[in-house]
């Protein structure tokens, strides 16, 4: 564990560069009306961390309630409101925007050698819509919560619930547009703003992953918007689009809802995969194995991701033949993820690997995402789905993919680019320990839930039969460890803002264009628009570059 590739400038003389995007202009208005993609990324980072801990607290409440078979910590409808808000906050206010809106916003323009995203004002509007959605969610919680589950299943959400479904629907509607504008910005930027020489196959895989996720954001989110508008209309005007007593079909809502909500899970995971491609390549000093295969598998996930949604509805009475079609397509969409995992594994082959925190999180990602992905195939095969759906097996599956995959990748990305964003290094030892604690806590929390799911414990139960208690106690114990694991980064990263070592331009000696400029970067990113004359992850070019620099200094 001792060797490291970190190379920091001499701390006695190193200083944070005088002019950078943080110091260029100050005052609240310079932040609230900024067009700079880096400042918007910082604004997003702060608001996303806040909502992550709101969702995390709700998760803690759920785990505490499930310590005992009876529902004794809170009344059942309070529990229903807690798990609904946990779902809404975590999915729409944390998982969908987290990597794209923070790391994507900050680094895509820098990685392609542009001064900013194509539409800075739309980018700022996206953050304001996100905050508006967040405030509406906070208002909903203050005004008594909503207990429809994050899936708004009709006719429950339209006729049998009198908590504030409308304000939650509006919050999700507005937050959806924030995601659309982020995706739209990325697609336009990646097509139109690449610096000279930056061909598509010289793009870092981080950009490919965000390109695929943006296609899903732009084309999937509007269908959720119309589904929510129809639910809102049905609650206010009482019309029977989804109401069986008036001739409507509640399964149509399921189709429209899951048409977005399955691509949404790819919106959440693809940016995380982009981060992992960067970290694995940097910390094994090697070009990602099979670059084109990894790039095209991102796009393949995006395209196939649109046509698999009904595997959430296998037992809801859709026709048996539709189940065949969707089950087959679900199997096809699982293959690109397998390709990516193997390509990352073989990137390590003949590399020169070091184990800084981002790499630890990436190893955690690879292990947990593999389990998460494979259990997804359990649910894609229609036979076993009959037994496993709507049980804790599903809860374990998507937590393995979302928390084990996406959150690990987000933390890997935050640690990897922290020096570039703030100019300061995070403390290595404590963050490595935090990564290990998170990994252990995670497995302790969610692995027992696979067994609970196989035993048939249903989702969203405030009270459960006594024989499931033992596994739930393990899960809650794990959740406390996980909670600690997630609190640590907030502490030492804020600490590092003041006391962290000065990072310099390229502490990891990485090959991305963002590492070739100062940190924290200038507002216009580069003093002169770079010319990309080498392949992505070209470590020989980097060595030549550094050799030339040393020669020029002497």
């Amino acid at each position: 564990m001792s060797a490291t590739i970190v190379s920091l400038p001499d701390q006695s003389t190193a200083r944070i560069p005088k002019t950078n995007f943080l110091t260029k202009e100050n005052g609240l208005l310079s932040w609230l009306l900024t067009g700079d993609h880096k400042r918007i990324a910082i604004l997003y980072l702060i608001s996303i961390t806040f909502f992550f801990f709101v969702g995390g607290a709700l998760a803690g409440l759920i785990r505490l309630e499930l310590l005992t078979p009876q529902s004794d910590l809170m009344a059942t409808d309070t529990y229903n409101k807690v798990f609904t808000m946990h779902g809404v906050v975590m999915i729409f206010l944390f998982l969908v925007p987290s990597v794209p809106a923070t790391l994507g916003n900050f680094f895509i323009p820098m990685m392609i050698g542009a001064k900013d995203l194509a539409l800075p004002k739309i980018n700022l509007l996206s953050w304001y819509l996100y905050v508006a959605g967040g405030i509406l969610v906070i208002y909903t919680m203050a005004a008594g919560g909503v207990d429809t589950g994050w899936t708004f299943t009709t006719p429950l959400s339209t006729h049998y619930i009198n908590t504030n479904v409308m304000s939650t629907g509006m919050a999700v509607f507005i937050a959806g547009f924030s995601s659309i504008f982020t995706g739209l910005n990325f697609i336009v930027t990646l097509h139109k703003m690449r610096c000279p020489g930056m061909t598509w196959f010289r793009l870092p895989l981080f950009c490919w992953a965000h390109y695929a996720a943006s296609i899903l954001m732009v084309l999937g989110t509007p269908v959720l918007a119309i589904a929510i508008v129809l639910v809102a209309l049905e609650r206010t005007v009482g019309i029977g689009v989804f109401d069986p007593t008036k001739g409507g079909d509640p399964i149509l809502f399921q189709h429209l809802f899951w048409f977005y909500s399955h691509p949404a899970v790819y919106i959440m995971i693809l940016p995380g995969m982009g981060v992992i491609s960067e970290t694995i390549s940097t910390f094994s000093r090697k070009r990602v194995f099979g670059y084109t295969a990894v790039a095209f598998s991102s796009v393949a996930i995006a395209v196939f991701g649109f046509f698999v949604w009904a595997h959430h509805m296998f037992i809801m009475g859709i026709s048996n033949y539709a189940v065949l079609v969707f089950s087959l397509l679900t199997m096809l969409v699982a293959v690109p993820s397998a390709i990516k995992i193997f390509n990352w594994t073989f990137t390590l082959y003949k590399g020169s690997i070091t184990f800084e925190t981002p790499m630890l999180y990436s190893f955690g990602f690879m292990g947990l995402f593999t389990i998460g992905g494979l259990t997804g195939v359990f649910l894609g095969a229609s036979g076993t789905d009959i037994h496993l759906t709507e049980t804790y097996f599903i809860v374990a599956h998507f937590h393995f993919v979302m928390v084990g995959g996406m959150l690990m990748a987000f933390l890997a990305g935050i640690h990897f680019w922290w020096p570039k964003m703030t100019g300061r290094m995070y403390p290595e030892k404590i963050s490595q320990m935090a990564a290990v604690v998170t990994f252990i806590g995670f497995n302790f929390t969610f692995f027992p839930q696979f067994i609970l799911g196989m035993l048939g414990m249903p989702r969203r139960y405030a009270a459960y039969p006594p024989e499931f208690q033992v596994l739930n106690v393990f899960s809650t114990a794990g959740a406390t460890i996980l909670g600690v694991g997630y609190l640590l980064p907030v502490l030492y990263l804020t600490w590092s803002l003041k006391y962290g070592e000065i990072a310099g331009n390229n502490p990891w000696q990485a090959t991305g264009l963002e590492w070739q400029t100062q940190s924290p970067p200038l507002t216009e990113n580069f003093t002169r628009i770079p010319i990309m004359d080498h392949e992505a992850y070209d470590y020989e070019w980097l060595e030549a570059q550094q050799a030339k620099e040393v020669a020029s200094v002497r």
Partner: protein
Amino acid sequence: MSDSPIAGPAHGHGALAEAGDPHHGEHPSYQRHHFETVDQQADATNFAMWLFLLTEVMFFGGLFTAYLIYRNWYYPAFVAASHQLDVRWGSLNTLVLILSSFTMAMGVWCSETRRRNGLMLCLTLTFILGMAFLGIKTIEYHEKWEKHHIPGLHYSLQSFLDPASDEAAAKYGDSPLPLDMARHTELYFFLYFAMTGMHALHMIIGIAILGFMIVRARAGAYTNGHVTFVENFGLYWHFVDIVWIYLFALLYLISRHQ
């Protein structure tokens, strides 16, 4: 500490701007700082507008899916309910909207060829045609209001259970629908109000932006080479026209024969 930009062996080809001098002469005033050339900016905004229109396609797509399914399920109810719509108003509205598309396209042409008066005329014509469209829509909505065909507000099945009492239905010689089928006409009217209402909302937004553009155009804004705003609005307007073309075909024209 050297912030070493990647200076390739020889930098600068053609239009690479010298570093650090933001106000170099040849960039027009409307070019934003982060674009290299005006073309890049025009292409980017045009592409962004197309992507936004894709989200609108998927937004209306959800409504069309619902319409398609319920039309297959309750075809007789949809036929009887669609006879309540007046084909004449519908066709006139389609005419109005196609004309407004034409005047909008001419407006874009005037802006490209820097004809300020031509642009003013076209934009105002489009504005008037848009208002005419909304006027006709209010007439139709008002007629539904009188017949109690507004879904959810004490919707009356009277004109479907006993078509003789309703001159629109009588014109087509509709046979009276049994109660359980007549009930589903309320679904048709919900989809009718949802789709044409959403379309009208997009028209209202379009007309508001048109008003703003007319004011700016009078001040000579779009005839100095910077046409992207007019072009993008033209795309939006034509998209709203296309949605109406499908709405007219699907909602008004279900089997009008006797």
